[in-house]
C-alpha cells in the first residue's frame, strides 16, 4: 500500500519534468555496404535518461510491431564507466550528436547494447544483417521513461549490394598450371614409352596409354592441389584476398603455433587417436577371438550384427548417437539418470571418443579375424598338450604372431582417427566452449582447420595448419615404424 502510494506520487511528480521525445526526422541509406543499411534519426527535443530507441524492421509497412522484428536498440542512460569503441570496431556502428552536427561514437554496455548520454538529439546507426536486394521497412519506436511508446512512421530502403560477394578469380593461372602439369605428364609417359621402344619391348606397347588417364587424374586432382596447398601456406590468401595473394613467408606458421590452445588441441588430438586405436584393437581382438572358435553356434549371425556399425553410413550413426546423448534422449531413460554430457567439456570428450570406438571396432575385428585365421593351428594344439593355460597362450603365442598384422593396422588406424572429421563435427562441432578465436573443448586438429578455413575464411593459415598436421603425422609414423622395427629386431 505504502509502496503503491510512493509510486503514484513519484509518477505525478516526475511527469511534468520528463518531457516525451518524438522522432522528428528519419532517413535511411541502403548504399553503404554488404548487407547494411544506414539509419539516421533525430528527436524533436533532447532525450531524457531512461529513453529507449528500438529499431524495428519488416518487409511490409510497419504500423504495429506485431508484423515486425526488432533489429537492435539504443538506450539513453549513464555512460560513465562504459567502453566507447571506435568506428569499425563494433558489429553495428552507431554514432550520436547533440544537435551540433558532431557525430560521436556511442558507448557500449556489458551486453553490447548501444548507450548514448542524455540530451542526445540525433543517432546514426549502420544496421548489419539486412537481407540484400529486397525492399525492407524500418521504423524507430521511442519508449519514454514513463513507459509511453511512440512508433515512428516506417521508411523503406534496401541494401543495394548483392548477396554474393563478387570476387573475380582469375581462372587463367589455374588453367595454365593444370594444363602444364597434364602436358608434362603426357610428355613424361611418351619419353618412357620411347625408351621402352628403343629396348625393343613390344609386349607392353599399350601399357603407358592404359595408365595415362589414371596418372593424369591423379596428378591434376591430387598432386597439384597438394603442391598448391603447400604454396598457399606461405601466402596471405583469405576470403577477400583470393586471386591477388602474395607471399608472406612463415607468418602463417607463426600464427599457427601462437594460436591460443594450440597445445591443448594437439594434446586432445593425440589422446583421441591413441585411446581410440587402443580400444579398437583391444575390443577388435577380443571379438575376433570370440568369433574365431570352431564350434560357435550362430557365428555368421553374430558377425553380421557386429558389422552393422561399419555398414551404416557413419554420418547417420553419429547423428543417432548424438540424439541418444541429448538430455531428453534415450541414454538418460536407459540409465535412469539426468545427464547432459554434451554440454560438459569432459563429458563431451568422453562421449565423442565412445562414439568413435563404436564406429571403428568392426573394421579392426574383421582385419584381425583375417590375421587370426592365418595363424598355424598345430601351434595351439602343441601348447594345449603341454598344458599351457589360455592366458599364456594368448600372450606368448597369439600376440607375438599377430604383431606383423597389428603394427601396420594400428598405424593406419592412427592416421584415420587423427583425421576423423565426421564424428566431432556432427556430435559437438568442437564445442562446448567455442571461443571466437581458438579451438573448442572437443576440437581436434582437422575440425579446427575446417573452422579456420571455412568459418573464418583464412585459407593461408588453414593451409599452414594442414602442412603442420601432415608433418606431425609423418614424424609420428616414422618414429612408430622405427620403434616397432627396433623391438622386432631385439625379440
Amino acid at each position, binding site marked *: 500500500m505504502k509502496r503503491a502510494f510512493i509510486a503514484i506520487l513519484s509518477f505525478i511528480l516526475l511527469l511534468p519534468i520528463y518531457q516525451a521525445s518524438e522522432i522528428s526526422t528519419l532517413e535511411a541509406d541502403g548504399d553503404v555496404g554488404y548487407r547494411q543499411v544506414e539509419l539516421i534519426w533525430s528527436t524533436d527535443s533532447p532525450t531524457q535518461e531512461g529513453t529507449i530507441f528500438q529499431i524495428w524492421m519488416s518487409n511490409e509497412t510497419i504500423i504495429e510491431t506485431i508484423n515486425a522484428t526488432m533489429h537492435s536498440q539504443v538506450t539513453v542512460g549513464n555512460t560513465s564507466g562504459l567502453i566507447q569503441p571506435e568506428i569499425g570496431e563494433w558489429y553495428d556502428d552507431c554514432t550520436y550528436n547533440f544537435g551540433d552536427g558532431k557525430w560521436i561514437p556511442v558507448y557500449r554496455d556489458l551486453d553490447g547494447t548501444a548507450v548514448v548520454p542524455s540530451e542526445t538529439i540525433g543517432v546514426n546507426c549502420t544496421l548489419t544483417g539486412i537481407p540484400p536486394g529486397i525492399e525492407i521497412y524500418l521504423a524507430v519506436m521511442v519508449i519514454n521513461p514513463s513507459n509511453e511508446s511512440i512508433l515512428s512512421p516506417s521508411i523503406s530502403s534496401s541494401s543495394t549490394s548483392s548477396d554474393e560477394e563478387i570476387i573475380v*578469380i*582469375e*581462372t587463367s593461372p589455374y588453367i595454365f598450371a593444370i594444363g602444364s602439369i597434364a602436358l608434362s605428364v603426357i610428355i613424361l609417359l611418351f619419353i618412357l614409352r620411347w625408351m*621402352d621402344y628403343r629396348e625393343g*619391348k613390344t*609386349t*607392353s606397347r*599399350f*601399357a*603407358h*596409354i*592404359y*595408365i595415362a*588417364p*589414371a596418372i593424369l*587424374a*591423379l596428378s591434376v*586432382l591430387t598432386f*597439384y*592441389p*597438394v603442391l*598448391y*596447398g603447400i604454396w*598457399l601456406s606461405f601466402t596471405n*590468401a583469405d576470403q577477400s584476398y*583470393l586471386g591477388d595473394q602474395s607471399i608472406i613467408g612463415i607468418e602463417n606458421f607463426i600464427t599457427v603455433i601462437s594460436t591460443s590452445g594450440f597445445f591443448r588441441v594437439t594434446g586432445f588430438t593425440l589422446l583421441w587417436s591413441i585411446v581410440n586405436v587402443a580400444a579398437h584393437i583391444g575390443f577388435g581382438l*577380443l*571379438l575376433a577371438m*570370440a568369433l574365431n*572358435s570352431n*564350434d*560357435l553356434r550362430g557365428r555368421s549371425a553374430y558377425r*553380421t*550384427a*557386429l558389422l552393422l556399425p*561399419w*555398414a*551404416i*553410413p*557413419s554420418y547417420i550413426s553419429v*547423428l*543417432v*548417437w*548424438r540424439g*541418444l546423448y541429448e538430455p531428453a534422449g*534415450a541414454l538418460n*531413460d*536407459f*540409465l*535412469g*539418470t539426468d545427464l547432459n554430457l554434451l554440454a560438459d567439456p569432459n563429458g563431451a570428450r568422453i562421449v565423442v571418443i565412445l562414439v568413435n570406438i563404436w564406429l571403428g571396432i568392426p573394421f579392426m575385428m574383421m582385419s584381425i579375424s*583375417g590375421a587370426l585365421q592365418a595363424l598355424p593351428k598345430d601351434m595351439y594344439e602343441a601348447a594345449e598338450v603341454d598344458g599351457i593355460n589360455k592366458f599364456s597362450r594368448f600372450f606368448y603365442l597369439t600376440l607375438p604372431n599377430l604383431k606383423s598384422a597389428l603394427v601396420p593396422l594400428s598405424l593406419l588406424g592412427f*592416421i584415420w582417427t587423427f583425421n576423423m*572429421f565426421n564424428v566431432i563435427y556432427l556430435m559437438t562441432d568442437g564445442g562446448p566452449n567455442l571461443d571466437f578465436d581458438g579451438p573448442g573443448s572437443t576440437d581436434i586438429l582437422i575440425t579446427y*582447420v*575446417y573452422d579456420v578455413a571455412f568459418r573464418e575464411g583464412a*585459407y593461408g593459415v588453414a*593451409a599452414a595448419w*594442414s602442412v603442420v598436421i*601432415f608433418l606431425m603425422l609423418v614424424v609420428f609414423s616414422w618414429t612408430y615404424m622405427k620403434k616397432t622395427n627396433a623391438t622386432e629386431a631385439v625379440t
Partner: protein
Amino acid sequence: MIGSEKSLSPVFHDDLASRWYIPAEVESLRSLYPIVVMINFVSLAIFILREDQDLIFSSSMQIVVSLVILLLLYKLDQGQRFIRDGVIAISGLSLLLCVLQFLSGPQIIIDYWMLGWSLFPSLFAIYSVSKPIVTLWASGNQTTRSAELGLYRNRSVNRFHGKVFRHVALTHAVAFVVLPILWILDVALSPGNSLGGGFFDSVTMEHFNHILSSESFWIWTRNSVIVSIGTTILGLALAIPAGYAFSRFKFRGRDYAMFSFLLVQMFPGVIILVPYFLVMKALGLLNTSVGLILAYSVTALPLCVWMLKGFFDTVPKELEEAALVDGCNQNNVFWRIILPLSLPAVAVTALFSFLAAWNEFLLALTFNTSEEMYTLPVGLASLISSTGQAWGDFAAASLLVSLPVVVLFVIFQRFLIEGLSAGGVKG
C-alpha cells in the same frame, strides 16, 4: 598352481597329477570374478550419477563382497576346505544383497542387467564349488586316479565354459551395436519429435509419409544418385585400364607409378581440402555435381586400381597368350577376354566406389553449399542443426537411406572386406 607343502595331503604329496590339478570350475571363477567386480564398479558409478543412496550402499557392499570372493578364490587350494565353505557363505551373502537390491529402487532394464551380473556369478560360484569333485579336491582327500580323471574332465568343462563365455561376450557386443539402431527405429515410428519415452509405445507412419512427400528429400536423393553413379563410371573408366596395365605389363616407370598410388592412399584428406576447394572455386565447379564426381573418383582411384590389379592377377596368363598366338591384338585381348572374365570383380569395385560416394560427407559439405545441390549426407545432417531438430523426420530418412546400403554391404561383405582390407581403406 603348485600347492604349498603344508596344504598337500600327506599320502600323495609328490604326485604330479594331484599337484597340477585344479578344477576347471575354480579356474573359470577366477577369470570371471574380476569382470564381476568391474561391472559392480560401473553400477556404483551409475547409482552415484542417479544419486540413489540405497542403491549406492547396496552396490558398494556388492563390490566388497565380490572382492572378498575373488580373494578367497585365489586362496582356495587343496586341503583348504574352510575357504571353500567361505566362498559358499559369501556368495550366499551376495545373493541376499541381490534380493535387497531387487526390492528397492526403480526397476528399469539396466537395473536387471546389473542385478544379473551379481546374481548369476554368485549362483554359479555356489553351484560349482559345491560339486563333489571340487569338494573332494578342496578337502585334500583326492586320489591320484581322481586327479587324473579330473585333468581329463577339465578339457571338456573348459570347452563348455569357453563357449558360454563367448556367447555372453558376443551378446553384450551385439546389444551395444543394436540398441542405437532399435532406438532410431523407435524415434522414426513415434509421433512428434520426442527422443525419450518407452520403446514402441505408439506407432505412426507420419514421419515416413512426411519425408517421402517432401521435395527436398527427393532432390537430395537425385543429387546423391547422380554423383554416385557418375563417380562409379568415371572411377572405373580410369581404374580398369590402369589396374590391367599394372597387373600384366613390365614397363618403365611402373614401380614409381604404383608407389605414387600408394602414397596418395597415405595422404590425409585434410592437406588437400583447402586447396581443393580453391581450385574448384576457381574453375566454377562448386555447387555442381561434376566437381564432386571428379573429386570422389580420384579419391577412390588408388584403392580401385589396387583392388582391380589384385583381381586381374588371378586371371590365368595362358588365356591371353593363346589369344595372342591366334592373332588377336592386345586391345582385343583386354576387351574381349580379360574384361568379361573379371566382371564380378569389376562389379565389386563398382559397388565400393558407389558406397564411398554415397556416404561421403566432408567434401560434399565443403563444395556444395546451396541447398539445391546438397547430397543426402549433408541434407540429412541439415535436418538436425541449430535451426531445426526434426528428429522424427531424420530418423525416418536415415532408415530409408541406410537400409539399401546395409543390405548391399551384408550381401557382399566377404568380397568388400577382402578388397577393403587389401587396400586398407574404411568405408
